[in-house]
């Protein structure tokens, strides 16, 4: 059952976005995040939302599937809104009770912050929805490849990440097994004080660590027996190769960044605050 767990939330379908080089997608995510931070008002958010919708359409990932990614941050969004709406001190409050002060400006600010957070989460999840963890690792390896010059073991770190990806489901399954074994011996994980509950987890952590270290030892041996050595330039079965589409992707991203920055600067300069604040 646990072996089914896929990290991230890759949605397997063939689309233009799926076929893009992971490096383009990483760069795109970076640009997108920059534009979300630059946008501060209604028109800015509208543009970003439209861009998000367009890319989602191209990616063929159902919107409902992408929304599931929001579930984990719903509380953070809510907290952000409440903090800003109830404790904002800048505006003129129409309700004031102790530390709580609710003002129109505060509510606006809260909404803006929540929207920004939602756009950030939704937008960057396109990356993980359309890129397998492996491609992502390899993309990162390539994108940060220049660090090798500064003696950063980029290849080794990337291999470590991909091995971690392979073993996480196995270790989760193992945790479950150990927990069931301890539970059948009468360990109670659900009741008692916090300290007691934490203590109950010790008999899980220790066997898990022992087994993880044994696995690591076995794996190191298996890797060595298959001619693995550190610091030696490995090749790849499927090396990353830019296609024409990737070039166009970069171009579109650059144009988007340029236009967005221009628009923002113009609006700032002309003092039209519509783009800047809500």
């Amino acid at each position, binding site marked *: 059952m646990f*072996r089914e767990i896929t990290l991230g939330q890759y949605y397997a379908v063939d689309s233009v976005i799926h076929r893009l080089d992971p490096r383009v997608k990483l760069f795109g995510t970076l640009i997108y995040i920059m534009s979300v931070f630059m946008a501060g008002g209604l028109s800015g958010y509208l543009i970003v939302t439209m861009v998000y919708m367009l890319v989602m359409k191209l990616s063929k990932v159902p919107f409902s599937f992408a929304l599931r990614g929001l579930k984990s941050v719903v509380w953070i969004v809510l907290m952000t809104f409440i903090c800003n709406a109830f404790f904002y001190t800048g505006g003129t409050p129409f309700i004031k009770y102790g530390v709580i002060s609710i003002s129109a400006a505060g509510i606006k600010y809260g909404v803006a912050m929540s929207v920004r957070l939602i756009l950030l989460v939704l937008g960057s999840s396109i990356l993980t929805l359309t890129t397998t963890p492996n491609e992502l690792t390899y993309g990162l390896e390539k994108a940060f490849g220049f660090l090798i010059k500064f003696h950063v073991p980029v290849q080794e770190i990337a291999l470590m990440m991909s091995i971690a990806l392979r073993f996480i489901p196995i270790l989760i399954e193992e945790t479950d097994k150990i927990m069931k074994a301890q539970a059948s011996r009468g360990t109670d994980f659900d009741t008692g004080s916090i300290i007691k509950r934490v203590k109950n987890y010790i008999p899980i952590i220790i066997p898990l660590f022992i087994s993880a270290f044994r696995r690591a030892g076995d794996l190191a041996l*298996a890797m060595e*027996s*298959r*001619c693995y050595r550190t610091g030696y330039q490995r090749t790849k*079965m499927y090396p990353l190769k830019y296609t024409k589409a990737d070039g166009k992707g970069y171009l579109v991203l650059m144009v988007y960044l340029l236009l967005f920055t221009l628009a923002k600067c113009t609006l700032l300069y002309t003092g039209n605050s519509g783009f800047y604040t809500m």
Partner: protein
Amino acid sequence: MPFISIKNLVHQFHVRDMNGEITGEYNAIDDISMEIEEGQFIAILGRNGSGKSTLARHFNNLLFADKGSIWINDILVNHENEDIIWNNRKKIGMVFQNPDNQIIGTTVEEDTAFGPENIGIESENIITLVNEALEAVKMKHKSKMSPNHLSGGQKQKVAIAGILALKPKCIVLDEATSMLDPHSRKELMKFVLELNKKEKITIIMITHNMEEVVNADKLFIMNKGKLLTHGSVNEVFNEVETIKEAGLEIPEITELAIKLHHVNQNFRTGIFTPEEFANEFERVYNEKRNKE
């Protein structure tokens, strides 16, 4: 010239006390000499802790001799000469006991490609090697799958594919079947035998299960780091006392045949399957009836 030749090999592990201080040496391999010819199907038998894995790691140059020497294709293994070591590891692959702990890639084909990628083969050639290897183990249709979705037997096949992709001369299987169910165990054994017969790959099968070795050309029995005996299956299986000393169990049917042989010299030994037993029984019975 033998393919692998081991001369008076000794491998020592430190013995430590409770505080981790070294208090002595323990000979996990204690003066072993053996020769293995290319293309042979070799079985090494011994109970837990008899030193089988330690010996296996010498074939693969994962461990190095404390005393004595090991020669592969007439080249002395020297832990300071990396070229020899990498060459040997390419030539001699190793399948380990735990299927989960030897698969590195996140997909089947990626794992198979791990070895060729390590030695810097070009991409197009890797694809060919990987496809050939996966076809050989009949796992081509699962090439994009995560290894986590495979059964133990399938994982061991992927592990073998990863070795085949390096075009090896020899595969060492260190109790590779011990964590499998009986069906997958038989299937894997059949496949390994095929590799030996068709591809002429030398197989070194390490096990404590005597039923798995009946097809071997040569058996070596280990106990406490020493070689107790070696020879053909027939020769070794008749040394009932030695086998008992090594803590191994002869298949019941074989033991029964040996007992019958003591009663009636006409009944042959070296019987490993119920079918063989039935045939032999029929032969002896018919002969006796014809005489009467």
